[in-house]
């Protein structure tokens, strides 16, 4: 429902839907002397759900943050619908309305109600009509099964509920791709599932999703493609069927044997 690209979004020159929606080529990033990304390349097609897995500190979160320019990269190219992210004259507004992001710590705005959290960006950033945004926000709250919590403040919601509001908040911008940065890592075990169900529904509706996750069962079930990162490089990638059953690289095998 929210997956159709907005027609008035700035069209990027030369991009057609048959090309990768997100394309990373040889992306490098260092924090001081520590090189976190050592030449990462990947393509994400429209409507695809991909999972990035790997040990802690392997650069997964940095990688996903580069895509919406929360973290500037040192070299390489990142293109979202043809728009170059690593560009000094980057139109951040245009990029960020195309790319939604959900964080591990939810990061809802605690002084606003759930519904206001969802409405804020479309109203104040995109300057859309308030009544229209409110209707859309209510639909989204119902979609994440929180229609009865519209007027609750984030502090009154459980972790899983807050995370679903965060998903609705990102969707309210009508993004073309959603980034999920370990969104279930801070949740109580019993609320993990409700969030995963929401994400799976999104993926099934055709939303392009890029997930960093430790939920292997979920990755196997939902992802079209799995990327395994270790020490700043993509060691191996493939569809879940082959990735989990016939890992080729010894590092992948070592990682999988530890967690499965």
């Amino acid at each position, binding site marked *: 429902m929210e997956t159709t690209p907005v027609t008035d979004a700035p069209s990027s020159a030369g991009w057609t839907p048959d090309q990768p929606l997100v394309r990373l080529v040889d992306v490098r990033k260092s924090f001081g002397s520590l090189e976190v990304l050592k030449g990462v390349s990947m393509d994400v097609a429209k409507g695809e759900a991909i999972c990035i897995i790997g040990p802690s500190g392997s650069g997964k979160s940095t990688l996903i943050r580069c895509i*919406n320019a*929360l973290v500037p990269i040192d070299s390489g190219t990142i293109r979202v619908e043809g728009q170059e992210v690593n560009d000094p004259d980057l139109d*951040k*507004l245009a990029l*960020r*309305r195309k*790319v*939604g*992001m959900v*964080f591990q*710590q939810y*990061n*809802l*705005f*605690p*002084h606003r109600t759930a519904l206001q959290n969802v409405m*804020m*960006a479309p109203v*104040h*950033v*995109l300057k859309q009509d308030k009544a229209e945004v409110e209707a859309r926000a209510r639909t989204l709250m119902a979609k994440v099964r929180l229609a009865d919590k519209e007027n609750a403040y984030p*502090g009154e919601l459980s972790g899983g509920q807050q995370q679903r509001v*965060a998903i609705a*908040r*990102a969707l309210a*911008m009508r993004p073309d791709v959603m980034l999920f940065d370990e969104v279930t890592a801070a949740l109580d075990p019993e609320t993990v599932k409700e969030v995963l169900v929401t994400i799976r529904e999104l993926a099934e509706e055709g939303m392009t999703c890029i997930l960093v996750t430790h939920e292997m069962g979920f990755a196997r079930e939902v992802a079209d493609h799995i990327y395994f990162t270790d020490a700043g490089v993509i060691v191996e990638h493939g569809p879940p069927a082959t990735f989990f059953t016939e890992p080729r690289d010894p590092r992948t095998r070592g990682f999988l044997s530890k967690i499965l």
Partner: protein
Amino acid sequence: MSEVFTAAPAARQKGDVLPVLLPFRAPAPRAWRWPRLRLVHLVGIVGALLLIGGGAFAQGGAPRLSALEVIWKWFPLLMSGFGFNILMSVLAMALGTVAGIGLGLLQIGENRFLRRLAWAATQFFRNAPWLVLLFFAMFMIPFQFRVFGYTIPFPDWVKAIIGFSLPVMANMSEILRGAVASLPSGQWEAAESLAFSRRQTLFMIILPQCVKRMLPPWMNLYSLITMATVQASIVGVSEMLTLTSQVHAAEGGRPDLLAPLYGFAMLCFFVYCYPIERFTLYLERRFQLNQ
């Protein structure tokens, strides 16, 4: 070693749960109420009265007024002085708060030069004795300004207010900077990923959350500045302390009146500042629970 391990289960057999296993329940915030009079307060008040009235019993001479009578006689004048202290504190606080918010915003702003300048000003005025700042204002500001043929007088008490507002400004600037820095960085990140501009993020998301955090230290600052206003007596403003010493002189400079008169001034400030202090404490506790 083994004793340690066996001791714990033995203790638990009695049916009590280990404290760490109990669910943490924060105490419910208590509703605000005026500080109730307790024994300790009563002792203080009676002590103060004895101090004030003490002279009367000791002297007892026929034509001389007792300390309480002296205070009663000059009560309107002394209270007008105290009112002046409060007026100065309110105006200095208002001026300093507005200026301090401006300075604090510059401190967290994007312009590097202004940021450094604001930081330097904040540190300079924060680390100067308040009395020195008061002198600074008294002697650096002319007693009148001439603008377009109009003469705007700057009496001493106005200069004193400016002098007191300088430390308020610097402390307010630091309170604001601290409050903004204390918010989790995730708030900035979330706002950024939703394409909010820096200005929008600051005014719609960050600062509204900071008001709560800034209120207790701000009230604390007010309490401090109120008590500091008596320093204006040194530069000749007729506030309570000045008037108290004048009253003392008018009563012939009797040594037995010293303690009661100044004790009365002390009591006035205590009665005014103590509820503020209690209310600040209450707010702090409430906000901590609501985080």
